[in-house]
């Protein structure tokens, strides 16, 4: 027994030395390391991969153009596996082990929120690019007030989930004029908040909410849920899901021959290439709120889309990729304004003064309502037409005509 204790202690010592050595090399000319928290494995890996690709694409371009004051930009990725507790540990590791002065990324709402608390506590700025539940940029959730801007380290590039459907509202008002809606949502922070805010918008627009039904991620049989919903004969379905559930919902809706006037997704899964791949013909005609489309008249949007397809193949990125790509450029912009002083405090001050253009749109962190450090953005509506995601709303920016009413029999053949 004594032997074992000795061996164990020796092993402990050896490992501790290894870790000690790791942390003491520090070079002033080496690359500037920035932390990125993303779901690289697990059920949300689809999104994480697209965002990581986009970060890498932007990094290559930034470094090719001279990097940050002659130093290269480097991203240190930490896999949050889509779980809040792992995300927290990941953020902690980035801050304490990798000693990054800034974290970006942040995919799912609950993970981002949990990780944001870590960043806030360590006073390291966190530039969120996808996590969308409203409270992430509400200081109240972190025991602060909206006046504590200088004590609040969270910044967000993407709009909060409650604003995802703002572009959709005008489409509903002007073209479709539905009388009723049925809301189906994943029972997560993102889904619950998205459902309650769309319910409010619908009531404001005079659309009767026939029902709100949640489901657990990874459900395999949506048929009872869909049939129950269809019993109420809603004019439209509003659905908040990640990609695999989204594909399954549409597939089973097609099998059950459920034909409302509209199927509308709330972004997330419904704009991903993987949605179309998995749903097949059932994806046709489905609308979704979105934050970005490559055909928008924003400088660089099309180039980013094309470069992505050239480098990684496939169907190209949706708004998630654009968010990540833009976040990388915001990071580069912010670091350049730090003038060699890459400490969390200086970076935070530089973030406050951000006012720049990205492929995702203009980026500026403002305060309104309960939120601070929040970027304001317009949202749009896309539709799957002949296997491609087309921008259909607002009309003046659209690259495809929104055909209404939708002939499901023809699309689902």
């Amino acid at each position, binding site marked *: *027994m*004594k*032997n074992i*204790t000795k061996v*164990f*202690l020796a092993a*402990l*010592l050896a*490992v*501790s030395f290894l*870790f*000690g050595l790791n*942390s003491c090399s520090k070079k002033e000319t080496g690359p500037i390391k920035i932390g990125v928290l993303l779901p*690289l*494995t697990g059920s949300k890996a689809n999104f994480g991969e697209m965002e990581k690709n986009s970060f890498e694409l932007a990094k290559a371009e930034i470094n090719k153009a001279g990097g940050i004051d002659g130093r290269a930009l480097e991203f240190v990725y930490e*896999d949050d*596996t889509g*779980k*809040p*507790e*792992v995300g*927290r*540990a990941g953020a*902690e*590791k980035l801050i*304490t*082990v990798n000693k990054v002065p800034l974290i970006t990324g942040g995919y799912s709402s*609950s993970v981002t*929120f*949990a990780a944001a*608390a870590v960043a*806030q*506590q*360590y006073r390291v700025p966190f530039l969120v690019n996808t996590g969308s*539940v409203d*409270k992430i940029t509400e200081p109240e*959730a*972190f*025991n602060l007030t909206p006046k504590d801007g200088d004590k609040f380290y969270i910044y967000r590039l993407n709009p909060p989930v409650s604003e995802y459907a703002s572009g959709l509202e005008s489409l509903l008002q002007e073209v479709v004029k539905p009388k009723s809606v049925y809301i189906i949502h994943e*029972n*997560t*922070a993102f*889904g*619950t*908040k998205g459902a309650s805010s769309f319910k409010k918008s619908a009531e404001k627009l005079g659309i009767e909410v026939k029902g709100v039904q*949640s489901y*657990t991620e990874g459900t395999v049989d949506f048929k009872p849920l869909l049939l129950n919903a269809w019993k109420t004969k809603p004019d439209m379905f509003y659905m908040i899901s990640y990609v695999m559930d989204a594909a399954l919902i549409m597939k089973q809706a097609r099998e059950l021959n459920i034909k409302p006037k509209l199927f509308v997704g709330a972004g997330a899964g419904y704009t991903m290439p993987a949605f179309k791949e998995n749903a097949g013909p059932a994806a046709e005609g489905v609308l979704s709120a979105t934050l970005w489309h490559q055909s928008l008249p924003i400088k660089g949007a099309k180039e980013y889309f094309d470069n992505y397809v050239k480098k990684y193949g496939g169907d190209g990125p949706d708004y998630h990729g654009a968010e990540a790509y833009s976040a990388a450029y915001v990071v580069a912009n912010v670091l350049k304004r730090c003038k060699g002083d890459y400490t969390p405090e200086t970076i935070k001050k530089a973030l406050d003064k951000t006012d720049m253009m990205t492929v995702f749109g203009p980026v500026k962190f403002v305060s309104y309502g309960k939120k601070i450090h929040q970027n304001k953005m317009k949202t749009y509506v896309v539709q799957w037409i002949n296997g491609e995601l087309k921008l259909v709303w607002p009309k003046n920016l659209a690259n495809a005509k929104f055909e209404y009413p939708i002939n499901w029999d023809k699309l689902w053949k």
Partner: protein
Amino acid sequence: MKEINLKWFSVTKTELYIILGAIIAPFIFYFSPYIQGLLIFIMMWVILGSSWNLLAGYTGQVSFGHAAYFGIGAYAAALPFYHWHISPWWGLLTGGIAAVILGYLLGIIVFRLRGPYFALGTLATAEILRIAFGEEEWLTNGHNGILYITTWVTKLPYYFIVLAIALGAVFSIKAVMHSKAGFYFLSIREDEDAAKAIGIDTAKYKNISMAISTFWAGTAGAFYMIYMGFIDPEIVFALHNISIITILVGILGGVGTIWGPAVGAVIMVFVQELFRSAFFGLAPRWVGNIHALVFGLLVIFVILYMAGGVVGDWDLIAKKFRRTKPKEAKA
């Protein structure tokens, strides 16, 4: 598993070494909060594993729903904070008590069942709680979860708190297993009807075992809330991440041994982190995906070749070790 492992009680010197090692460990890794974080998780799993082990390993009531008690402990710490801003630290007192009350209430239902039916019953009750806590937003804030800005950034104080709880759990269970109640537990495990026939109030002793077990599980839950600062129903009532891992920790280390769950916890956290971090970044990324698979294989191996777990079958392992390397067998 089939006999009382009395020899483990007598080696108090070893236990002293283990405690000493546990106290020194965070100082060895003083500059690595990352490792300290892992040590805290190990201790948390020691508590959960030991708690499960008392009920399942010693009393024979194999629970598949220990997440219920862990979760209720976490929410006992979180809910007063969420509603009235009462410090979650009180949870270290109330979490265990809340879990004991819940355990008693659930016991009324599940103790009527035996064997696989008991396992399924406990599994179902935990799942019911998970769904209920997700849906009842007015009470629990549902899937938005509850966030608490933790008291300290440094990990050392948390480590010593969780270490104290872990030692409390292990030694209270050891003490119970030394007492008359402990032998009653074993007799219930071996044959409940026979135990009843010789005059043991099986219902009462099953409840006592349940109470001690759930108390520690609930305290672990409360500690989780205080330490992590964020919980939601999917985290703390998780079937695979809490209930199942608890069982695996017990099986790996050794069912029905005092130190088994502790050894299981070390192995579990080590393997999980090794694969999650893809061998600390040395292996390709996809390695991270197979951690569940490797863990599963490990459990199958343990069940097939050393059903007593690492601690329960230690003599067997040591014997093999000696045969292949006779020179090191000295001392």
